[in-house]
């Protein structure tokens, strides 16, 4: 496990510390608020840093207790902008100098009597709501057309409203109106047991069920200081890679759909189905649910002897399939130079996972901050520099390969032994858990009350980060490429909206 240092800091010094951390090669990961006691709110800022001398990675968490308005840090670290707006909506904290001073998570027209994450806001009372108009750039030129698309869109997809400003084929601006699906998941953890928390975490983002539950469990384990048995840690990594596998296969099938490769789409989705059937055969769930509990696994698995052969068969089919994709000009023509995300924008705006790695940023939590069984594996992190849709596809194709290789290695190394240890976080403890989900970095911050049950859970999902970045690749592009570009990002809405 990486080290985590928690430092109390005066609000006035925070901007300088954040700037210094970034100058030294660190990066902000998230910010959130919570109430240590009902009368006092506290802000937390989480940064990842690398000690240049020892190449040792760690996390720094700054905590500060604001009084009144708070200085926005969006000009120092732009990716913090969305976190500040979320804190404003859900906790009522005002940020001064925020470049986008509009609500983000709560739609215009909501009128909660108290901010919904305030401890006095009851768990089961709905906010009053009357649909209203959202903040939107003003248009002066009458040739510019406005196209609202969604939230109910064509095909079986998640709900999001995409508002385009365009002239002819040319997109000037994209404003994705997210959070139609905001369910208030973070508040639902409050006052709940750990077993309940796992069930919730598994249902924050269905196609990231395992990564969410894993980050949640690891945060609880850190708070409790319990040690997960080696067999359970290795099986956790194995299951996490199976999750990556079916997600990436779905991604390829969907991308082929947008470049109108009918057989390519069918084959990708068939391979995804095979991977999901393997999940069910191993765990009883196509989404790898019902396996995790703080302290280990709920029950042992028997991946031997069949899983290795099943994956090798699948690997050969995937290799044939991806070689076909990579040799199809009509497919490549639509991907190369489409939706370019520059390295600097990816870094500043907080791109994560395959998206940042396709833009030349060499980061992966599995290698940089090892957890579960990853400390015992050598981890290859594919990185591309061109930042276009093709690079995003290539990174995922390479990750499929490394995932299967890792699973095979884990099957060889898998020791016998127990899969569960007792794990009970003490009262007033806290923990930070993370996982490199198929879509990128995922964090859970847990705080326990004086009765030892959950009092605050913050979820930082990868899609929250990548949705923030995505419009930067759409501005100044064309309509024809939009669907391909969106597919190349592989976003989920549920994870972002929570």
């Amino acid at each position, binding site marked *: 496990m990486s080290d985590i240092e928690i430092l109390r800091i005066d609000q006035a010094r925070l901007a300088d510390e954040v700037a210094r951390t970034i100058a030294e090669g660190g990066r902000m990961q998230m910010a959130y608020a919570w109430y240590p006691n009902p009368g006092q709110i506290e802000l937390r800022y989480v940064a990842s840093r690398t000690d240049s001398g020892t190449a040792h990675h760690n996390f720094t968490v700054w905590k500060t207790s604001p009084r009144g308005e708070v200085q926005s840090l969006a000009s120092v670290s732009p990716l913090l902008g969305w976190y500040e707006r979320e804190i404003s909506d859900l906790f009522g904290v005002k940020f001064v100098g925020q470049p986008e001073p509009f609500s983000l998570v709560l739609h215009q027209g909501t009128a909660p009597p108290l901010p919904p994450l305030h401890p006095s806001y009851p768990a089961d009372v709905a906010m009053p709501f009357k649909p209203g108009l959202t903040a939107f750039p003003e248009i002066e030129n009458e040739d510019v057309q406005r196209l609202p698309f969604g939230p109910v869109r064509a095909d079986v997809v998640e709900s999001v409203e995409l508002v385009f400003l365009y002239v002819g084929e040319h997109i000037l601006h994209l404003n994705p109106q997210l*959070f139609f699906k905001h369910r208030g998941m973070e508040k639902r953890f409050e006052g709940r047991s750990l077993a309940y928390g796992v069930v919730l975490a598994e249902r924050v983002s269905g196609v990231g069920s395992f990564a969410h539950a894993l980050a949640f469990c690891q945060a609880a384990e850190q708070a409790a200081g319990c040690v997960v048995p080696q067999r359970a840690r290795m099986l956790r990594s194995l299951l996490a890679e199976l999750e990556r596998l079916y997600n990436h296969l779905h991604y390829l099938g969907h991308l082929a759909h947008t470049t109108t490769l009918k057989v390519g789409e069918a084959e990708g989705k068939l391979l995804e189905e095979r991977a999901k059937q393997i999940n069910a055969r191993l765990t009883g769930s196509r989404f790898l649910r019902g396996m995790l509990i703080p302290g280990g696994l709920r029950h042992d698995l028997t991946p031997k002897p069949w899983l290795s052969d099943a994956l090798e068969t699948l690997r050969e089919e995937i290799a044939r399939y991806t070689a076909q994709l990579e040799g199809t000009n009509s497919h490549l023509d639509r991907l190369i130079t489409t939706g370019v995300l520059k390295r600097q924008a990816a870094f500043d705006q907080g791109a994560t996972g395959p998206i940042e790695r396709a833009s030349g940023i060499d980061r992966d939590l599995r290698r940089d901050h090892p957890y579960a069984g990853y400390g015992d594996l050598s981890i290859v992190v594919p990185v591309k520099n061109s930042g276009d849709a093709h690079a995003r596809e290539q990174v995922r194709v390479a990750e499929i390969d490394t995932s299967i290789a890792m699973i095979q290695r884990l099957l060889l190394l898998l020791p016998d032994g127990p899969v569960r240890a007792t794990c009970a976080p003490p009262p007033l403890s806290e923990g930070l858990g993370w996982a490199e989900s198929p879509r990128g970095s995922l964090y859970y911050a847990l705080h326990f009350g004086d009765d030892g049950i959950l009092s605050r859970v913050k979820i930082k999902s990868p899609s929250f980060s990548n949705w923030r970045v995505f419009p930067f690749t759409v501005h100044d592009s064309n309509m024809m490429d939009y669907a391909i570009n969106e597919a190349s990002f592989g976003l989920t809405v549920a994870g972002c909206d929570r």
Partner: protein
Amino acid sequence: MPLWTLFGLTQGKATTPWPGQSPRNINDGQDNLLGMPRFKPERCETGCAECAAVCPTGAITVQPDQSGKDRLEVDYGRCVVCQLCVETCPNDAANTSFDWAFGVRERSDLVLNAAVTPGIDAKAPAESRNGFRRSLHIRHVDAGSCNGCESELQALNNPFYNLHRLGIFFTPSPRFADLLLVTGPVTYAMRDPLHRAYEAMPEPRWVMAYGTCAVSGGIARDGYACGSGLDGILPVDLYLPGCPPNPAAIIEALLMFLDRVPQRAQGGRLGE
């Protein structure tokens, strides 16, 4: 230059022969898939309260029966298939099952009821759907799901399940839709778009609550941003709980809706 058509042809037929005339042991793709637990309420004499307390969604409750003893009550419309009760309930009152999620026409058929004998009380559909038995067009609306339901709905059109072969299609426009298939607990922000999609559908039109969230709110029931599913928002013609329902169960529920197969469950139990 790859020849995709040839590539596809050499792959052979990928589609499952289910549901057809084939024997029951064919590969339907649902091997080892855990379903909603089966309950034997009479076996739970002591410790029933633990059984109910562990359920995250209140699907299991304890009520005193006539003799004043605790008796388990189960509402499958709230079950999220987490299997916690199987691990907790004493005396095998809750057991692992591999039952597929089951679709029903009446919400009450998801509530465990010993007085109902499955297979006998099957009600005929209230209205004839004769014009739609061979072809159905579905408009899907995501009203705040976790994307698990969407993942399984998208799977229906993969070559393994190949929903088209059964005459069932997803359509982009509600104007062409016969059935509105809704996922999620219906968040405050999706209520209005959901109503507008329904209003845009021509009559006759039907509504399906797909997944436990749409049936009852599931794990997201009654928060500051959520409702408790479709009941009270739209008239529901078909309920299919599950978290998420497995693909074969969706197909079966849709065929049931079209009167092409009988409803399997009554009173929360499957007919054998």
